[in-house]
C-alpha cells in the first residue's frame, strides 16, 4: 500500500492548538517538521542522540506527571532505540505518547529504506512492550482521534503514521543545545529554573 499522507500536514495537525503539550522531536526530518509547524519553547528538537527521543520523552513524562508529553520521531530514529519501548512499557507513564512519522526511509542520508519498508511493525513492538494503545494510521481522517489521545487518553500511547517518502524543505530550529535546553526549562519551570 502506498502512503498518501504528507508528513508536514500530519505534524501540523497533531501540534495544532497544542496548549501545554511538551514535545520532544527526533533528529532529522521530524525536528524540521515540528519547526515548520511553529518553533516553540516547549519543543526540544534533537540534532543528535539518535535513538534517544523516546527515552527523553519518558524522562520528561516521569518528571512532569501532570503534563502531557509527546515524542514525534522518525522510523529510523525509533528503530535505533527499540529497547526504549520495552523500558517505557515497564514504567507505563500515563501522560506519554510516542508518534512515529514513518516514511520507510532514512531521510537525511539519501532516502535509503529502513526496516519498516520491509515489514517491521513498530506498533506491534510497542503493543507487545506494554503500551496501552498502539495503532498504525494511514488516513487523514484518523488524525483528529490521535490528537485527542495525545492530549488526554491515559497511556502510554503509541502511533505509527504512514507518510509519503518525499523530500520537503528543511526548516531549521535553533542549533545551540544549551539554548534549547534553557528555553525549554524556563518555559516549563519559570525563571527559577535558571537558578537550579
Amino acid at each position, binding site marked *: 500500500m502506498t502512503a498518501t499522507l504528507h508528513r508536514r500536514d500530519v505534524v501540523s495537525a497533531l501540534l495544532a492548538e497544542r496548549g501545554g503539550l*511538551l514535545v*520532544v522531536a527526533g533528529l532529522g526530518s521530524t525536528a524540521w517538521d515540528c519547526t515548520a509547524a511553529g518553533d516553540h519553547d516547549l519543543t*526540544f528538537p*534533537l*540534532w*543528535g*542522540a*539518535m*535513538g*534517544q*527521543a*523516546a*527515552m*527523553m*520523552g*519518558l*524522562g*520528561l*513524562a*516521569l*518528571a*512532569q506527571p501532570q503534563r502531557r508529553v509527546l515524542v514525534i520521531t522518525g522510523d529510523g530514529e525509533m528503530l535505533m*532505540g527499540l*529497547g*526504549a519501548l*520495552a*523500558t517505557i512499557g*515497564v*514504567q507505563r507513564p500515563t501522560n506519554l505518547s510516542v508518534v512515529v512519522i514513518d516514511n520507510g526511509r532514512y531521510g537525511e542520508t539519501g532516502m535509503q529504506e529502513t526496516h519498516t519498508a520491509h515489514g517491521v511493525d513498530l506498533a506491534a513492538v510497542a503493543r507487545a512492550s506494554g503500551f496501552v494503545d498502539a495503532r498504525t494510521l494511514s488516513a487523514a481522517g484518523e488524525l483528529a482521534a490521535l490528537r485527542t489521545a495525545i492530549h488526554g487518553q491515559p497511556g502510554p500511547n503509541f502511533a505509527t503514521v504512514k507518510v509519503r517518502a518525499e523530500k520537503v524543505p528543511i526548516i531549521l530550529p535553533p542549533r545551540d*543545545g*544549551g539554548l*534549547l*535546553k534553557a528555553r*525549554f*526549562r524556563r518555559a*516549563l*519551570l519559570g525563571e527559577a*529554573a535558571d537558578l*537550579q
Partner: protein
Amino acid sequence: MNAPRAAGIDWPLQVHGALKAAGVSLVSYVPDAGHKRLIELCQADPSMRSVVLTTEEEGLGLATGAWLGGERSVLLMQSSGVGNVINVLGTIKECRIPLPMIITMRGEYGEFNPWQIPMGQATPGVLEAMGVIVQPALEPQAVAPAVDAALRLAFNGYAAVAVLISQRVIGIKSFQEQAAQ
C-alpha cells in the same frame, strides 16, 4: 567475599544517603553485581523511582528528559556499559545536562574474564575523551565522598561526572563465585 562488609563500611548505604541529600529522585540502571545493594536500597525508597534500562545509552536520554522537566537523576552501570553511551555523551555535553554516573569497574583489578579487560582498561580514557569528569574510588571509604563530590560537580556545574568504583572495592570474583551469585 563481600568487600564492603569485610572493610566494615557499608558504602552502598552511604551512597544512597548522598543521593537523597542531593535531591536525586530518579535512578536508572543496567544491573551489575557490584550495584546490587544500592539498586535494592533505591528500589525500597518511596522517594525514588528506579528505572531498569535495556542498555546504558537509554539512561542518558532519560536523564536529559528528566532535567528538562526539573528532576535530578543518576545513572548506575558497569564499566562495560561506558562503551554503549559514547555518542550520546556528545548530546549531554552540548546541552550541558547534569549527569552523575556511578560506575562499577570490571577488567581493571584482578579481573577473571579476559573479555572484560579491553573495555575496562579503556573506560577512563573513553570517558575523558568525551569530556566527562572522572573520579576514581579505590577504597570502600572513598566511595561515598567521591559520589557526594560528583553530585555537587554535576548539578552545580551542569556536567557529566563519573565515579569509577574499583574492583578493589567490589571484590575480585572467580567464575565460580559469579555463578553462585
